């Protein structure tokens, strides 16, 4: 049996302040390959903390996080950054596209810090853009794209390194209902294509489209 993509064993996060804030209580979580999971919770519930730990942007205060069976707790910062770059693709609420670069360059940026060969980086970026249905807007700049198209560029950027896990942080927060629907359909098709997805959201409708729903409240995760 292959290791699950994500396995949290007693992972908690406490912030050193006075008094200390326990943002995430010790939690166990398993996300298998191909899962489409939604993590739902109101703001301040600890879902951002969970996102940062899952995304290797923050290290847990206790417990162990296995990503693809790899214990991430003993990694140096450079190694953690390397794992983050190669195994995790992020989709952000505010897209975070660089304004002075066209869509291909924005997508190719995802492989800047990885070992992917430089020569066919552009080809892989174009491939990823085709995958999200933007093959016709390769030379466009973000300012000329609609909100939905921008989010698709962001998704393509998350997919280009063929990550083990795609983490989406409020992916529809800045979109109207029509585009939200389109992005959710895209997620659905990615899921059908075998991609492991974790969507963090406060929107129950978005969460309802996922295969699994996880609820987080006051730092407690429940399914």
């Amino acid at each position, binding site marked *: 049996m292959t290791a*699950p993509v994500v396995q949290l064993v007693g992972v908690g996060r406490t912030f050193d302040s006075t008094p200390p804030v326990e943002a995430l209580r010790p939690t166990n979580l398993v996300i298998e390959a191909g899962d489409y999971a939604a993590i739902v919770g109101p703001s301040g519930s600890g879902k951002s903390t969970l996102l940062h730990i899952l995304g290797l942007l923050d290290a847990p205060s206790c417990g162990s996080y296995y990503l693809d069976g790899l214990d991430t707790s003993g990694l140096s910062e450079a190694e953690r950054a390397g794992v983050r*770059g190669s195994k995790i693709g992020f989709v952000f609420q505010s897209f975070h596209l660089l304004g002075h670069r066209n869509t291909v360059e924005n997508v190719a940026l995802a492989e800047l*810090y990885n070992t992917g060969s430089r020569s066919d980086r552009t080809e892989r970026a174009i491939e990823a853009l085709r995958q999200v249905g933007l093959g016709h807007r390769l030379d466009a700049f973000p300012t000329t794209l609609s909100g939905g198209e921008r989010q698709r560029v962001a998704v393509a950027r998350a997919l280009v390194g063929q990550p083990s896990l795609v983490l989406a942080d409020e992916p529809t927060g800045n979109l109207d209902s029509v585009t939200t629907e389109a992005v959710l359909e895209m997620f659905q098709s990615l899921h059908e294509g075998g991609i492991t997805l974790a969507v963090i959201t406060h929107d129950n409708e978005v969460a309802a489209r996922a295969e699994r729903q996880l609820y987080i409240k006051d730092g407690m995760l429940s399914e």
Partner: protein
Amino acid sequence: MAADRPELDVRSSRLSFRDLFSETTISLTARPARTLLTALGTILGVAALVATLGLARTAGNQIVSRFDELTATQVVIKPETQNQGRENQVSAIPFDAEDRLTRLNGVVAAGTTSDVETGGQFVRSVPVNDPLGQNEFQIPVIAASAGLFDATRAEIRTGRFFDSGHDERSDPVAVLGPGAANRLNITQTGNAPAIFIGDEALVVIGILENVQRDSALLNAVIIPNGVARDRFGLKAPSEVLVDVNVGAAELIGSQAAIALAPNNPESLRVQVPPSPTRAQSSVRSDVNSLFLVLGGISLIVGAIGIANVTLVSVLERTTEIGLRRALGATRRHIATQFLTESAALGTIAGLIGTSLGILTTVAVSATRDWTPVLNPLLPLVAPILGTVIGLVAGTYPAWKASNLEPISALRGSE
């Protein structure tokens, strides 16, 4: 179920040099006007510095080359003052000084000059009975050897110089300085005009136009040594003027006294021009210091400018930094990127500034008919100065950027 840590699967993130280079290029060219304005302070600072050094050197060289024309090729030999005071002591300069010195390698021309004691006698031209006009003058009389005209680089207006033949035969001839000729009302020599020093008659054979050395000749009646010796009791020349090749002054200075007075070279005082290097360095240090301070100040201002704008740009690019961290960049990668950008900016500013500084130097030199002179190291070192400024200025912003939390950076625009 927790698997053992598979070592091979962990690859540290890395940033290749080519990628760093292209990222830097994209960042700097994305907003060219802003890039240029950021670099402006450093451009001006480096330009001011280069122009200052270039112009100081050019001007210094100019002043020195003027020295060269007048004095660097001139050696003057006089008897020591203590000897002149003693009545029975004759000046150690022999009448054949000219012959002795022109034999030395490096001497172009040499000539003796002596003030002739006329005992207060007036000089007059052919008597004209003009009761209203003055026709007798107190004009200095100078005895010279024929080489003096070459040694002073004299130009003749009319007639000729006297030569060594006149000297040897004690021919009663004279050459007039233009001032003396004017006072004596002699304008041409074709009809062999005569002048009288006291009762001694002399034929004017030439009138000088100008001399480049020893301007006393311009207002004097110049007579050959032979005449001065026979008619006016000149015992010895009082001074030797030597025109030497460029660079030979020091050498001739050390040889002249021995050539003239082999038995007693200490009795002669040899004046050589100050060595060019010494003159040059003293001139340059005067001009430099003030402008170097100004250039340094503008460099500091330039560095503050780069630091400021880089810091602003770090704040502006907060989300970009967060994104890069999420995509696998380490703190070090972020710091490296910002440091590279500011260093590249500094280098470009240094290059532009150096070019401007050199252009300024050339332009100013052109308007003043100077020869631009530049230390060849300057165009190499100045751009590096820009790089250093960029590095120093970028250090704090880069550190600040690398310390941004990717989490808060990414949420910044929410």
